[in-house]
């Protein structure tokens, strides 16, 4: 182990591997505290005088994108079903909300909840069809769902056709701020909890080898659909509020294909298959986009394109993914990867081998295996 590279030394002292796991791993010891603290920090600004519409809007949008990216990740990252069509849930939610608010004069909370429910039901139906496909084919099918939904909305009466729906009587920005924050926190809690349960394990297993998961006795259709519906629920809730937030929706905005790619970018940049990753990615990328928009007028999309390319090439596993990989590598040394066989080579007998590893594992048990609430 003498060859352990030095460039990891600095990173190690700043961020020991156990810390990485505790911070980002789903089973991390401080996860709940971290979530709680973040939620409180998120809730404070408006109470302490953040009244500025712009910041309010930008931060609300960050929450919104974090919701969407995390939802994408439930299916795309945790379950390995990369969807190009999540914005279909958003659009359905947005239209449900808008139609209920405008044409049926339903109250805002009821409209939003209905939006979530509609999106979930839609997901259940569509899921039974598209979740039978894998990989590339799944990706295209979901894109097809998104585009078909967009085209259909464009041609219907109730959706206002190509002109969309205008929602002019808008509640103040702070309402949306807390709404998106609330949904986001709820979603983080749900995903965080689920990923340390058997349900979460099964989703990961489906991602890694669905055939084997089936052979182990899991009816994968059932779990995939559940994950897909969960994603749709949160996406639909966000969509339901978005129409009012934006004062206007049309097929282009509600089923925004470019956003769908942005979501994926956010999840990937942050790190797929983790809870923190998509959220960090959403905050990060959205900040970049906002900044570039004011700083490089006319060139902002070029900058955005370059930013995406550079980040993806530089951090192919995303921020959290890179950190975890690092933790994993360190872990490999810490736990001595081959310590067991070392012992064997040093001449202890076969039965002693087991004993020596037991010791190693026991001494580590308190940092690794146990978890407090």
């Amino acid at each position: 182990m003498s060859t352990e590279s030095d460039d990891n030394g600095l990173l190690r002292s700043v961020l020991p591997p156990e810390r990485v796991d505790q911070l980002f791993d789903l089973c991390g010891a401080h996860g709940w505290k971290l979530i709680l603290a973040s939620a409180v920090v998120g809730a404070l600004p408006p109470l302490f005088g953040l009244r500025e519409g712009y910041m309010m809007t930008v931060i609300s949008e960050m929450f919104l994108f974090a919701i969407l990216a995390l939802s994408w990740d439930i299916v795309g990252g945790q379950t390995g079903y990369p969807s190009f069509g999540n914005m279909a849930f958003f659009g359905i939610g947005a239209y449900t909300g808008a139609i209920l608010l405008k044409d049926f004069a339903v109250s805002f909370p009821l409209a939003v909840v209905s939006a979530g429910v509609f999106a979930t039901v839609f997901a259940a139906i569509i899921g039974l069809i598209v979740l039978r496909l894998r990989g590339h084919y799944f990706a295209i099918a979901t894109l097809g769902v998104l585009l078909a939904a967009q085209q259909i909305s464009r041609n219907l009466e109730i959706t206002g056709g190509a002109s969309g729906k205008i929602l002019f009587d808008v509640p103040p920005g702070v309402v949306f701020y807390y709404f998106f924050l609330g949904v986001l926190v709820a979603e983080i809690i749900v995903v965080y909890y689920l990923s340390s349960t058997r349900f979460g394990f099964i989703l990961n297993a489906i991602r890694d080898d669905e055939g084997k998961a089936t052979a182990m006795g899991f009816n994968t259709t059932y779990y995939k659909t559940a994950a897909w519906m969960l994603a749709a629920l949160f996406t639909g809730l966000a969509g339901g509020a978005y129409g009012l937030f934006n004062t206007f929706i049309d097929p282009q905005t509600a089923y925004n294909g470019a956003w769908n790619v942005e979501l994926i970018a956010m999840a990937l940049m942050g790190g797929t298959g983790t809870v923190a990753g998509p959220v960090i990615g959403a905050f990060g990328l959205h900040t970049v986009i906002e900044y570039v928009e004011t700083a490089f007028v006319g060139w902002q999309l070029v900058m955005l394109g370059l930013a995406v390319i550079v980040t993806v090439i530089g951090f192919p596993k995303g921020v959290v993914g890179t950190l975890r990989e690092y933790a994993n590598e360190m872990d490999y040394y810490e736990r001595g990867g081959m310590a067991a066989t070392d012992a064997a080579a040093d001449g202890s007998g076969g039965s002693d081998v087991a004993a020596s590893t037991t010791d190693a594992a026991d001494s580590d048990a308190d940092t690794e295996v146990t978890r407090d609430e």
Partner: protein
Amino acid sequence: MAIAQFVVNGLLVGALFAAVAVGFALIWGVVDIINLAHGEMVMLGGYTAYWLLSIATGTAEGSVLLFLATLPVVVVVLFVVGYALQRALVSRVIGTDIFLTLLVTFGISIAIQQLAIQAWTANPRSIQVAFADPSLIVAGLVVPKMKLVAFFGAIILTAILYLFLQRTRTGRAIRAVSQNPEAAALVGIDVEHTRAVTFGISSAVAGGAGAFIATILNIEPQMGLIYTLKSFVIVVFGGVGSIPGALTGGLLLGTVEELTAGLVSSRWTLAVSFTLLIVLLVVKPQGLFGTEAEE
């Protein structure tokens, strides 16, 4: 108007969609890249032809022969662009997550698009080919001449590509890399180079199609997206990685769209194609010509 006319209209533009999609299917199948910048290759091909003609004639007008003479240049230029993109950028994320290649190509796509606007403005452009008017009338069906040329052009591009893959050593190497890159390296194939060549070929064919599109429709910096999207649909019709599949898929898509436009209403064309896409995926997930072995 007769159904036959719709079908003819559909086949005529369908061949162009096909030529675009063939390249898309190729890199998807071989390099495992969903190239979101594929439509931009079509766009660049169109602009290359446009500028070549402008340089040659002063205006973007010319005879058919002059136009056809630009094609080899377009194909070479786009090959180089594709090869370089793969080598410089995409190769760095290959073999990780397919979605990373998707993001890189997404970045490339918007960057190229925006640079094109800066360079050439957002105005749509089209190449005027002198002999184009008026149309042939065959058995009562209107067949615009230039479309006929484009139709055969697209078919020929596709056919050359197909033969290339089937008959040549490079073609075999490309197929080998698509099935198992590690094994391909094992038998002595330069995997990186092969991938870049594939990307180059795919871009070259797309560029060639773009040149034809500039003559019969029009081109603009932001035209790429719809061609990328249509390529998705076509690839599903035909099966990932299958050249004959993409060709048939393109013709089929064109026909379906024009039939919808003619018999129902053109406002439903896209809705119908995308719905058909889902239906087909469910009924025949491997595409009409899919060859991917079942997992």
